[in-house]
């Protein structure tokens, strides 16, 4: 499965949760599949989806799911120790690990080679870390939500992108409606 197929499958689960979504095609796909005020789309700032979602989870009680990418986590590796040492129960970091920089043309990342992101998350101090195969993502995500435990999920899937339009919504509109959803 590719990222967009996974997002389609988990959209009904994500729908009710606060989601911070990675820059580029991941956000375009989520936006096209099921746009929700509870989605915060990153339009830039590669690497910070995990940090933004984590700050949000620490600041309030609702569950927050960051949908990140392997390349983006690799560019902000300092995020893993910060998460590992401060993990609250209301945070899920879902790393869609397609082994590539999908948005920029599927160039391979080191995560698709010898580097093991789940092992890195564990070494960084994250307690609940699971590696999941693409086909199992929906069931596993629901299990993790039901467990009520802060968790890092590394979802192994194929490289590839669906053709979706760019997001033209103004960033302040994205942020404002998201904040209203957070506060509601």
């Amino acid at each position, binding site marked *: 499965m590719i990222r967009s197929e996974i997002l389609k499958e988990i959209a009904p689960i994500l729908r009710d949760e606060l989601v911070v979504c990675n820059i580029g095609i991941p956000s375009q796909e989520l936006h096209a599949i099921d746009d929700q005020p509870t989605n915060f789309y*990153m339009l*830039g700032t590669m690497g910070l989806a995990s940090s933004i979602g984590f700050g*949000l*989870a*620490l600041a309030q009680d609702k569950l927050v799911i960051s949908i990140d990418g392997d390349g983006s986590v690799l560019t902000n590796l300092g995020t893993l120790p910060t998460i590992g040492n*401060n993990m609250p129960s209301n945070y899920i970091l879902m790393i869609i690990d397609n082994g590539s920089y999908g948005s920029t043309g599927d160039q391979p990342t080191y995560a698709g080679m010898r580097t093991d992101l789940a092992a890195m998350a564990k070494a960084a101090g994250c307690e609940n870390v699971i590696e999941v195969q693409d086909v199992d993502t929906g069931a596993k995500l629901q299990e993790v939500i039901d467990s009520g435990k802060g968790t890092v999920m590394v979802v192994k899937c194929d490289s590839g992108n669906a053709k979706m339009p760019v997001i033209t919504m103004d960033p302040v509109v994205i942020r404002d409606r998201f904040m209203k959803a957070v506060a509601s």
Partner: protein
Amino acid sequence: MSIDTKIVDDLVANDVSFVTTVPCKQLAGVIEEVEARDEIFHIPSNKEDEGMGLCAGAWMGGKRPAIIMQNTAIGVTINTLATLTQYYRMPLPMIISYRGELREPVACQVEMAVHTKALLNQMHIPTYHFHKESDADELDAILKYTFMCNKPVAILTDASFWGGYGDQ
């Protein structure tokens, strides 16, 4: 009252309750004070752009954030300031040690000091420079201004402000 206590008192009085830090020798006292306060959740970050991501999330979650960092970090955070903090219009007080100014013992610090104000100016970031201890009287107003206009705002604190470098 120590200057560290005064700075953190102003943060607390302005309801700043989420603070991320990356240390600088000059900021050691203020970081210790942040850590000691019950009103503030202190979360050290590993890199300042990561810290700004945490602050963005915390603000959307209803908490007033601040970052405490060294001026060298301006070189690390330009992209984040432009495409996250400014693009989504979010407030962020940045309490910054201004290394590489008068009394600096470490030559390399001067290399970023000469770019610091130029970069902040280029980014259209409101910038305040604390040189004498009494300059900190304005901190309360600067914090109110930051959360009024939803912008990143820089507070540069140089060596003279901190009373030099102690034994160096």
